[in-house]
């Protein structure tokens, strides 16, 4: 596999790859089989692996999540697609009351190696309920992993890791960048580590922390700032629960300043957790308050106004500049 592929193609590649290696991997969800998924993430799987391993389900998310729990307890590895983040909420009871605590409440007798893949986020002019970023709701659930890739390569390696992980994973796919960039992704079957931040760029003056689609604007801002002589370290958090705080603390120990960027509303979001930890454990390295560039504490607008809601590169540059000027 040497041709460059997009993130959604890399996800498809990882699914093919792991289903080939491991018979216990089962893909299920609405429109994942014959149609290949509304974003084409599961295209070709049904043709290759047949209808026993690629299940077009009836339309019911509670059922998809609950079935996955049952299948996982039987030693299968269900990889379920929830069509859009806005439709994941019926799964909450199954995730909170069962998937995330099956291991714990049976003291390890049963466990739940399931993955819920779900496209999320704004910026594609989608209809109502199709553009929210609600990762914080899931990051708050003990026993659950929340993983968000931001490039084709990492999508491939992280999805393999999520499927192989013995515990439940919400694998959130930033659909705005599904087809943004192409990278050469080698189908080498190698998983990337979970529970670990990825430092995308090293820098000395300030640490930019982000994840998902906002990595695009964060890197753009870092480029613009580099032209002004500002050296940004860029950290992609990737796993939002549990968070690798050590990498962020080490970076801020070096730079002394931090801006956190996310698309989700500001309050009680994952940025608040990171900022609080910097306050608890990194206070003495901080030379300025930790800043956050985020969505507003409001409902994601319909598409006409979504650009007013979504943080952009200029917002990040402005926050970085203010943080650098703080004294």
């Amino acid at each position, binding site marked *: 596999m040497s041709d460059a592929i997009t993130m959604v193609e890399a996800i498809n590649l990882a699914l093919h790859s792991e289903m080939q290696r491991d018979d216990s991997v089962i893909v299920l969800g609405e429109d994942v089989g*014959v*149609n290949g998924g509304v974003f084409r993430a599961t295209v070709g799987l049904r043709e290759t692996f047949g209808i026993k391993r690629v299940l077009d389900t009836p*339309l019911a998310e509670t059922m998809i999540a609950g079935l996955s729990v049952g299948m996982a307890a039987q030693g299968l590895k269900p990889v379920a697609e929830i069509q859009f983040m806005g*439709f994941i909420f019926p799964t909450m009871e199954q995730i909170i009351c069962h998937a995330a605590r099956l291991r714990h409440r049976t003291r390890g007798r049963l466990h739940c190696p399931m993955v819920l893949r779900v496209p999320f986020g704004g910026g594609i002019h989608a209809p109502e309920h199709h553009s929210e970023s609600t990762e914080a709701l899931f990051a708050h659930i003990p026993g659950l992993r929340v993983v968000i890739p931001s490039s084709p390569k990492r999508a491939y390696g992280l999805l393999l890791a999520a499927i192989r992980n013995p515990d439940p994973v919400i694998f959130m796919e930033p659909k705005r960048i599904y087809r943004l960039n192409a990278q050469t992704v080698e189908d080498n079957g190698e998983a990337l580590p979970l529970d670990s931040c990825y430092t995308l760029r090293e820098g000395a003056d300030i640490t930019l922390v982000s994840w998902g689609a906002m990595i695009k604007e964060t890197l753009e801002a870092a480029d613009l700032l580099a032209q002004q002589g500002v050296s940004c370290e860029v950290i992609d958090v990737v796993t939002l629960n549990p968070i690798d705080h050590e990498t962020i603390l080490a970076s801020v120990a070096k730079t002394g300043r931090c801006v956190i960027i996310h698309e989700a509303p500001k309050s009680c979001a994952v940025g608040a957790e990171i900022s609080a930890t910097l306050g608890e454990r990194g206070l003495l390295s901080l030379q300025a308050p930790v800043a956050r560039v985020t969505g507003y504490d*409001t409902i994601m607008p319909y598409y006409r106004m979504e650009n007013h809601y979504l943080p952009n590169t200029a*917002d990040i540059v402005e926050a970085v500049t203010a943080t650098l000027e703080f004294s």
Partner: protein
Amino acid sequence: METVFQAQISYNQFLSAAGTPLQALPEWAGKPDILVRYYRNMVQLRQLDNKIIALQRTGQMGTYASLLGAEAIEVVLGELMLSDDVLVPYYRNHGLQMLRGLPLADMLSYWGGDERGSASATMAQDFPNAVPIATQALHAAGVATAIKIRGEKRAVVTVCGDGATSKGDFLEALNVAGAWQLPVVFVVNNNQWAISVPRSLQSAAATLAQKAIGAGIRGEQVDGNDVIALHESVTEALKHAREGKGPTLIEAISYRLSDHTTADDATRYRSNEELKAAWEREPIKRLQTFLHTQGWWDEVQETAWQKEVAQIIQQGLDSFLQRPPQPVEDLIDYLYAELPDALKEQREQLIRNAQPGGNHHE
């Protein structure tokens, strides 16, 4: 062993696919008035649908869920619901919404990505479109509960697709509506497909109408391409609701002649033969044939009406396209009855950013 319960589901149809009566027609269908109105309304919806899809293709409209093949259901519900009944719609009811008074420009606003599309005062107590599948069925049961508590003679109508009948919300709504004998009519637009998933994969039940039986309520199947059959079933169901005799589930058999939405490509998952066969049963041609036979509609009227409709649509379209964007503070101002202090700073930031020179100025 003894049989403790037995049930059957009836199928209601008056006009054949070719537009000929299959049985004696009800009295009201012996006159042109209602039937011609049905025809004209359906023609208008179809022309509008084509127009919106064309707009979407040129980037002036968002992702759009077509009404192609659902026209009969829309116009019959629009005719028979009273203004103080409550509609709890899904995202494929904009024809019905317009027949209940929603201006075209507002309807287009919704599909054009503007919240004001759900704000029109003409919608009175009707709910906005439910996008999360089947959630609306429970709202309908709740509205009906309020109506029942107050002892009013109003009915609630909620519509969903065949796929929606697989979701707990739908079944929970049927159940409570039966347990409490609520004044609600559940209409399933069984258009045979839930995006790419065919009806046969949703349920092993031979009919969706029989889901009513498990909930202890009335249920029947009706030809969803036949306005006469629909008119009869809906009239009866609304009468039951208003008279306090309880809920009804109507499974209207239709066919989604379009892609699921403009973001979909149905050729990936369904055959051309199936689609072609479905066009043979579609609602407009069938009624047109019948009206022609009765001498209630002719080519001259057809041409005149098509022209008039084109003008009506163009007017609505112009007013939609000329609509200035909503003020940016609307993104926050409708969140709570009163703006909490904690949001004031963000509101100012939002406004500042939208102004010339701001980071989000367009």
